[in-house]
């Protein structure tokens, strides 16, 4: 493989030694740039009680460019689309090489606590979130129960 940057080794070691509460990120055995991630739905959010699986991939020029992250578990959220793509500024133009895998995952966890329907990726979800928040939250809870709780 192309030589693995020490940065990735260092971050991996730290993720293993001091895991982030509510988040597990384990590198694939055969690919040090690919992480299997599980994020616990934050308390007091419609995602509470759910375990959400994500994939995180460090591109060749990481940390100069952002990790690629995607939800694999279905989730009802205005900033996450049907294919699990996430709308998060630090994964796009607000990326900085000083950010890390752990900071990215914390931001994603924060996005679950605070959905932002004014800047949507999943338009139908965002629409409902704006016009009828309680129904949207009900849907989010239902999806969490259906797709994120059966492990």
């Amino acid at each position: 493989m192309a030589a693995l940057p020490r940065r990735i080794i260092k971050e991996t070691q730290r993720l293993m030694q001091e895991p982030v509460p509510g988040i597990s990120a384990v590198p694939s055995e055969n690919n040090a740039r690919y992480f299997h991630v599980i994020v616990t739905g934050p308390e007091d959010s419609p995602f509470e009680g759910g375990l959400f699986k994500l994939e995180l991939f460090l591109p060749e020029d990481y940390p100069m460019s952002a990790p690629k992250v995607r939800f694999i578990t279905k989730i009802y959220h205005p900033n996450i689309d049907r294919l699990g793509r996430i709308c998060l500024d630090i994964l796009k133009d607000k990326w900085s090489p000083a950010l890390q895998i752990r900071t990215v995952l914390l931001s994603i966890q924060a996005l679950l606590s605070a959905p932002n329907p004014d800047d949507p990726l999943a338009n139908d979800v965002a629409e409902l979130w704006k016009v009828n928040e309680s129904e949207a939250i009900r849907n989010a809870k239902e999806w969490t129960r259906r797709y994120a709780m059966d492990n």
Partner: protein
Amino acid sequence: MGACCCSEEVPEEAAYVPDLQVRNGSITETQTRLSKLVDPRIVDQLVLEMLTVAASRVDTDEESPVSLVKLHVIADKEEGWIQMVTSMVNVIPLEDPFGPTAISILLDDCPLPSKESVIKVTHLFELSSERATSEDLNVRTERNICVILGCIAEKLVGPNSVAILTEDTLQYLLAFLTNEQEPCIVLFALIALEKFAHTTENKLTIKNRLERNEEHPLLKLEKHNHSENFVWRQVGFCANWALDNLFTIEGRTLSYMLEDMSQINALLNCHDVSEYLQMSANGLEARCDSYSFESVRCTFQVDNGCWYYEATIVTSGVMQIGWATKNSHFLNDEGYGIGDDLYSLSYDGCRRLVWYNAKPVPISQLPAWKPGDILGCLIDLNRKEVVFSLNGLKLYPCKEIFETTRYGFFAAASFMAYQQCIFNFGLEKFKYPPTDRKFSSFNDHGQLTEDQKKVIPRRIYLEQLRCSSVREDSCQLCYDEIASCVLEPCGHRGFCSVCTSQLKDCPLCRADIISIKRQDT
């Protein structure tokens, strides 16, 4: 830290409400009411369409084909997903080189199924060892089931993968691992097991079950490693790789330690390869089983003169084989490989295209390649020409690459899922050596140290890396170099000159960088 930003970048999923009107069908459902109502014949038809489209699709950025989008909508509902899987099992033909790839594409792009739907499918097909050992099994059906199980296992890594590897499914797959079975089923059953083994718990289960046999099935299958039958050869390759990397047996010597490398002076570089490419222990054969575009370069660098190598095609699917420089990036996840940038050039004998700068040029004078064919790759730095040939039939010379690059070329190749080929860098006699000019071979001129000749299994290499430590005064961005720079005017420090040169603003405070000072030590 992160706020939401991107209303403009990603296409709206909601815009794809497909029109399911089909000429002779009667279905006019819209997305909302679509559930168990889709006519199975229509799903079959869409899957077959998808197969043709996948074969002709060359641009990874282009919009998803209509049939693919329609299938996505159908598969969005649990019942629809099961229907789509059933269709794939029934209609994807054995002989189509895109079959397994098309299955991967479809399953990869569709929303993931719940473990219940997967288990439903396994019940639907009554997977069991009885089914696998029945006299009148349909090779196509079983092959497709194995491909699908593998893809699902790959996507559902973790507790779900453990849940779907039920006793019956496990027995079904294991029962195929014999010399008496059709090799294409054996191959995909083995690949499915490898993919289930991405989850550690499954790996241990499978490993134990394999070892419970009187003779380890993979030790038997591994012997096909050099078979003249190219399907069995793939089985042998995968079995051998699995024994070295996944289902290791205590006391078995790893293949790379046994390999006689004394005559080999050029091989595929196991430190210059994308993550999921699998290599033989002698470094001259490579295979990809992952749904990504995996690439590798040779160890030998060409700077002048005329050079030639050959690749024996083991599988007839998409591979891009040719020449690259160190400037070519392996963007395996995005589908970019050799021939997809300004610094590499390749031939794809499946779709019959020459690739340069991610632009394909169709080739009509040669037939599509098939297993056993020999691709010849010649580079002539005096005449500034690259000449590809298939079984000795030459293509016109390609010259564009010399506009960007004059030296520093490496033999290189990219592989789609389930593809494999064997490289001859001059260790063996060439089958179709060029006759119109003098050329050299890497093996006659290469020099490698003993360490460079070791194709160490990746897990061992990664293990070694993870144990290595990092110096305290190293750059806070790459940790590879010593921190030596101060950013002005913000004054943040702790970065090396290599990283600093790639920065526009400060990674810590985002202030513009006006100048860079050396850090006093």
